[in-house]
């Protein structure tokens, strides 16, 4: 690839505030960077450090007010973006500048099929009309690895798994092969092999069209694999920038150094020996078939999302579930929490079948089991501030904590997950993706459960905070005997944190085993593919051969 | 629009066009003397019957009348008008197989009709009928081809107009070529209906319509087109004399005296006449010399004080029962009267009811639960004789009567049987007694109707306008 030297996008001295009745919150503070055609700029940084906001301003997506662009110039290909009128902005957005949002569910319109939403990109820029676009849309979906794309174009966002939605977002962004693509954590919900496929796709696009790529990620391996240059942000400021190799091999700023050293490497001491042999959860022959149909009158068919899954979880144990995106992991989690009814199967929690619980017993069970949702934003009531969100379990189960201690405890929990006490008064939409995820974790911890189901609970966190959270969880496990079902795509994390691992593919558990054993000698072909798909730093890549998968 | 076509706006849609229901205003205004004709016609000035389809009549004995019928009359369907047709029409009316409003005028009399020859009939009744010719003005003669056991919406009569169409929007009448009388100036008349008086007035003003009866006084603003007419309606308050304190005549008189009649009259327009009795001038039995009660609050208070001293419970709550929409400004009038009565110290409370609820108080049997009450009402006698008024109001058995006096019943029966001058004098005596001695009601006003007549038409309303608008009497200017 040939990176030309003339930047296609240059940001200079960007400062963004969020205004409120009190002092303004400075989200981005004097940030400058640029990116050239064909080049990949990776933005690393602490969660909440202003990565999404600063890239959002490029697209003109910050609501002003309450957002306030205090200063800064944004020049795209010679045009000053801040001077553009609506029509000029519209011309650029989607065609020349495109963006992959961090939170794919919220950012997809729930009432339109994904096919239509993708086709709108074409329509908006006169690249084609409705029906004729279908073929192109299907091809795009296939390119991002959506299975059965031909039928799935007609599905609605809620019928997709987290990772699939993310890929829909990606398809939408690359539809018109933009000059510059801003990818805000585009692979958090993707398993390693799909991730590799997507990264390849992006690289291919860069090679073919000279697309510039700004990529925000917490995954250092991904960063290393993609970056030409890296900037590191912390507390709204750019603290370090430079060539990828330099930043990785020779970090200068203390935050960067902390980041680099926090990389988990299967440190087994985080793993627990199950203190007890008592079986907490016994899942047997669990299946979930979704009824599918694109319109209200279309014929229905069934889709086996979870297919005869069985496993056990002992008290104090952590079971990690890894696997293909769309393989039914979240579906299992939702069924275990009685949010979806299973098609068949049973799950005994402490000897009682979860699926048969009613009334009081069900409430008692729900108190003992908590979930961190894959989509934290959606899982919080937009009308409730963080204080109410976190204290809700106590309001539901009055015996957990006396009312006068609520405020105190909220602050405590916020600090445990690395947030500040003043965040308690804010509302969910006023947070960054990672911050929301931490609020969700704090809420799950609030009810002092026995089992927490974490669905991609740490995927939006930067490595240092990730470590802090993992340590917190491990500590609770140690002290209180908590059990976890830990669904993730992040192999190093499960390796470090889980005792046992289930590998899922197409609704089935294809392999199950002790963590170390599984990592060291995977038996199933898919597992092997997963483990081998770990990306290589870009500066070591000779030629980008397709990864096994 | 053709010059000889006119459009009339009525306040209400006629529910049906059954010729037996012509005493219902909106049916009568369309059918009466247009499509169907009666045997006799009441002269609006004298109140006396004049020839209609019957040309002559004589009483052969107190229970029997003989009528001569008009010659050369044909029904609109071609049938001949003759004694048999009269017999058919009267029997259809009295047969009880269909609901017939007009029969009410006959009370419970049983009629037997016998054709003497083709154009002579004899009508016998079980009780003496001194005013049968007057009563016959409500007998509409219909074609013998009309079903005898079913109410109809397509009446066929002998009138100058025949029904052309009847839809929910309009009724259209067309001139009938075979009419026996003079050919009317108007060839075609359509009737539409709008309840809102101001809209009706506006329609005539803009020329969309040519005539509308009964517009509200506040809409009658143009002296060129708007005509007032005494409409034979008399408004009154009935006093339920069966309950204390209303059983005391002083209180009843005080009720009459306490009203500022001139002030109240403003609600109904400057042309209304203060009433002293329940029938209007021109009705046989009306007494012109009977002076209405005048406003005298002091005297009213004095009477009340006197009654109180005599132990009458004057503080008892008296219910004033009004009916919504009974006549224009009816509610306001009740409010005003209530205020005036309260002013002289009577404890009067107003209740406004819907028609059906109000009817329970109007007609016997009265509700058991009632207490001392005053009832707002309106009486319409345009049939020329006090016989249509006196018995129902003042005999013990009268269906509106709250009054029970055997001696008075006898007086009334006497008057009802009398004829000629004697009859008139006896009715006058009854009205005088009711007014001065008994004071069982509070006559208010003889009401005025306003009609707006478009500039094309040559026509003036009169006392019969509330029951008929004979198109044949309407002329066209130029």
């Amino acid at each position, binding site marked *: 690839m040939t990176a030309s030297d003339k930047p296609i996008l240059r940001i200079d001295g960007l400062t963004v505030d969020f205004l409120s009745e009190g002092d303004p919150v400075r989200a981005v503070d004097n940030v400058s960077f640029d990116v050239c055609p064909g080049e990949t700029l990776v933005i690393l940084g602490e969660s909440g450090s202003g990565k999404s906001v600063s890239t959002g301003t490029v697209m003109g997506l910050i609501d002003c007010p309450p957002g306030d662009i205090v200063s800064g110039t944004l020049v795209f290909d010679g045009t000053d973006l801040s001077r553009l009128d609506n029509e000029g902005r519209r011309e650029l957005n989607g065609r020349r500048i495109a963006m992959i949002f961090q939170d794919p569910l919220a950012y997809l*319109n729930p*009432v339109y099929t994904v096919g239509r939403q993708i086709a709108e990109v074409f329509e908006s820029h006169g690249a084609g009309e409705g029906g004729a676009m279908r073929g192109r849309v299907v091809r795009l979906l296939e390119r991002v690895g959506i299975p059965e794309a031909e039928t799935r174009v007609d599905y609605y966002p809620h019928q997709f798994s987290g990772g699939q939605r993310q890929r829909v977002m990606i398809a939408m962004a690359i539809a018109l092969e933009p000059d510059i693509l801003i990818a805000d954590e585009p692979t958090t919900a993707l398993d390693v092999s799909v991730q590799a496929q997507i990264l390849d796709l992006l690289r291919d696009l860069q090679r073919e069209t000279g697309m510039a790529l700004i990529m925000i990620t917490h995954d250092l391996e991904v960063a290393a694999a993609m970056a030409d240059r890296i900037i590191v942000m912390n507390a709204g400021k750019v603290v370090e920038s430079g060539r990828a190799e330099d930043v990785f091999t020779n970090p200068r700023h203390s935050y960067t150094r902390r980041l680099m050293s926090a990389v988990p490497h299967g440190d087994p001491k985080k793993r627990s020996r199950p203190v007890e042999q008592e079986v907490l959860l016994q899942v047997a022959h669990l299946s979930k078939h979704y009824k599918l149909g694109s319109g209200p009158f279309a014929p229905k068919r069934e889709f086996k999302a979870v297919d005869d899954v069985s496993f056990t979880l002992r008290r104090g144990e952590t079971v990690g579930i890894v696997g293909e995106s769309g393989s039914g992991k979240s579906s299992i989690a939702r069924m275990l929490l009685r949010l979806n009814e299973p098609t068949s199967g049973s799950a005994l929690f402490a000897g009682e079948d979860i699926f048969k619980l009613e009334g009081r017993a069900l409430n008692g069970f729900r108190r003992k089991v908590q979930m961190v949702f894959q989509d934290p934003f959606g899982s919080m009531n937009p009308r409730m501030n963080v204080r109410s969100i976190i204290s809700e379990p106590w309001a539901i189960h009055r015996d957990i904590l006396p009312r006068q201690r609520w405020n105190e405890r909220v602050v405590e929990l916020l600090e445990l997950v690395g947030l500040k006490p003043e965040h308690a008064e804010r509302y969910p939409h006023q947070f960054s993706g990672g911050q929301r995820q931490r609020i969700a974790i704090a809420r799950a911890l609030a009810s002092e459960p026995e089992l927490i189901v974490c669905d991609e609970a740490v995927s939006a966190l930067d490595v240092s905070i990730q470590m802090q959270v993992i340590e917190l969880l491990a500590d609770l496990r140690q002290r209180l005997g908590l059990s976890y079902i830990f669904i993730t795509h992040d192999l190093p994390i499960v390796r470090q944190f889980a005792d046992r691992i289930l590998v899922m593919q197409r609704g089935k558990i294809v392999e199950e085993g002790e963590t170390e054993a599984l990592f060291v000698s995977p038996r199933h072909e898919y597992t092997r593919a997963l483990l081998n798909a770990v990306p290589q730093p870009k500066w070591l890549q000779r030629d980008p051969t397709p990864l096994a998968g | 629009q053709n010059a000889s076509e006119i459009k009339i706006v009525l306040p209400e*849609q006629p529910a049906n066009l*059954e010729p037996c229901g012509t005493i219902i205003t909106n049916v009568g205004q369309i059918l009466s003397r247009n499509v169907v004709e009666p045997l006799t016609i009441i002269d609006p000035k004298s109140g006396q019957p004049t020839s209609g389809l019957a040309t002559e009549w004589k009483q052969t004995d107190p229970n029997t009348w003989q009528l001569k019928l008009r010659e050369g009359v044909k029904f609109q369907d071609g049938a001949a008008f003759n004694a048999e047709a009269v017999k058919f029409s009267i029997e259809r009316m009295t047969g009880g197989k269909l609901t017939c*409003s007009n029969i009410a*005028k006959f009370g419970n009399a049983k009629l037997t009709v016998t054709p003497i020859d083709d154009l002579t009939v004899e009508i016998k009744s079980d009780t003496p009928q001194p005013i049968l010719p007057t009563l016959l003005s409500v007998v509409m003669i219909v074609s013998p081809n009309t079903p005898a056991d079913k109410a109809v919406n397509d009446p066929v009569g002998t009138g100058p107009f025949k029904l052309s169409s009847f839809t929910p929007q309009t009724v259209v009448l067309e001139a009938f070529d075979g009419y026996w009388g003079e050919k009317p100036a108007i060839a075609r008349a359509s009737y539409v209906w709008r309840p809102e008086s101001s809209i009706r007035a506006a329609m005539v003003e803009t020329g969309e319509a040519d005539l509308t009866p009964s517009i509200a006084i506040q809409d009658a603003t143009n002296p060129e087109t708007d005509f007032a007419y005494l409409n034979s309606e008399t408004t009154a308050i009935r006093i339920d004399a069966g309950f204390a304190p209303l059983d005391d005549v002083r209180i009843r008189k005080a009720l009459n005296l306490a009203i500022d009649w001139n002030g109240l009259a403003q609600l109904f327009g400057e042309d209304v006449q203060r009433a002293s009795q329940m029938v209007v001038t021109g009705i046989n039995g009306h007494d012109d010399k009977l002076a209405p009660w005048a406003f005298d609050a002091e005297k009213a208070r004095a009477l009340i004080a006197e009654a109180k001293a005599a132990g009458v419970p004057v503080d008892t709550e008296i219910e004033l029962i009004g009916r919504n929409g009974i006549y224009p400004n009816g509610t306001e009038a009740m409010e005003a009267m209530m205020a005036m009565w309260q002013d002289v110290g009577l404890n009067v409370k107003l209740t406004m009811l819907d028609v059906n609820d109000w009817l329970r108080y109007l007609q016997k049997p009265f509700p058991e639960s009632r207490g001392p009450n005053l009832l707002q009402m309106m009486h319409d006698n345009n049939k020329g004789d006090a016989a249509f008024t006196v018995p129902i109001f003042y005999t013990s058995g009268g269906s509106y009567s709250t009054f029970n006096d055997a001696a008075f019943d006898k007086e009334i029966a006497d008057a009802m049987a009398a004829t000629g001058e004697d009859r008139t004098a006896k009715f006058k005596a009854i009205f005088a007694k009711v007014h001065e001695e008994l004071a069982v009601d509070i006559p208010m006003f003889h009401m005025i109707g306003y009609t707006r007549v478009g500039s094309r038409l040559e026509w003036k309303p009169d006392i019969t306008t509330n029951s008929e608008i004979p198109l044949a009497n309407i002329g066209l200017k130029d």
Partner: protein
Amino acid sequence: MMLGYIGRRAYHSVISVIGLLTLVFFLTRLTGDPSALYLPLDSSLEARQAFARLNGLDQPIYVQFFQYLHNLLSLDFGQSLRQNRSAIEVALEAFPATLKLAVVAMTLSIALAIVVGALAAARPGSLFDRIAGLVSLAGASTPDFWIAIVGILVFAVGLGVLPTSGTGSGLHWIMPIFVLMLRPFGLLVQVVRGTMISALASPFIKTAHAKGMKRRKIIFGHALRNSLLPVITVAGDLATGLINGAVVVETIFGWPGIGKLMIDSIIQRDFAVVQSTILVTAIAIFIVNIAIDLLYAVLDPRIRY
């Protein structure tokens, strides 16, 4: 699945309509004996009894009810006491006029309200928003007969550009429709505006901007579609209000519709007609409601029955 749902709904609705008719039958009989209303005021008690006998009103109420049910089976809905003909015929004759008015008025007010409400929501607090709010609210809270009469006085009498009332040419439609639209329009503008403001703050609107979609399409495609549920619900309620009779308009402008018929029949205690009109309007209303419920599922794929 959908067909099953429709079937179930239809079944429930039939039961409800039968229940409704039973309810109406018995309850109307609580509002007094009609005989007095049908005869002249001065008719005798015997005459009234004869009337009751003639029309079967002297029977015990349950006998009347079984007679009614029996007749229903042979599609005989009873005779109108007032109009001398079959009650259902009266009702069916009056219905189209009302339906026409309702359909036109609702279509126009929904369309207009959506445009105005959406544009107002696009810039809350702007001049357009304020004016649209004031005008629509003023319309919705002014008595309709007031507007109707003033409209006639101004446009028909004063300016002479429109006919006062009646049916016929297209001009006759203008004022009735305008008067009928006021309340639905006012209410819908407020509902559209409110829900649209929330919808426009959703993250997926940002996606649409990022795609470079036209503002108009974002407002009317994405935001609107997500706020339509309450809008069509309220519109449905307003529509049923109109189906039940645009009484004021029907009376003032002389449209021979079902609303006026219903009121007259109720006041006149013409029970058979009351029952028949309610049957006709109830069927229409149930159909509207089923249609709206189906529309929910069409508009929002997450809603399944």
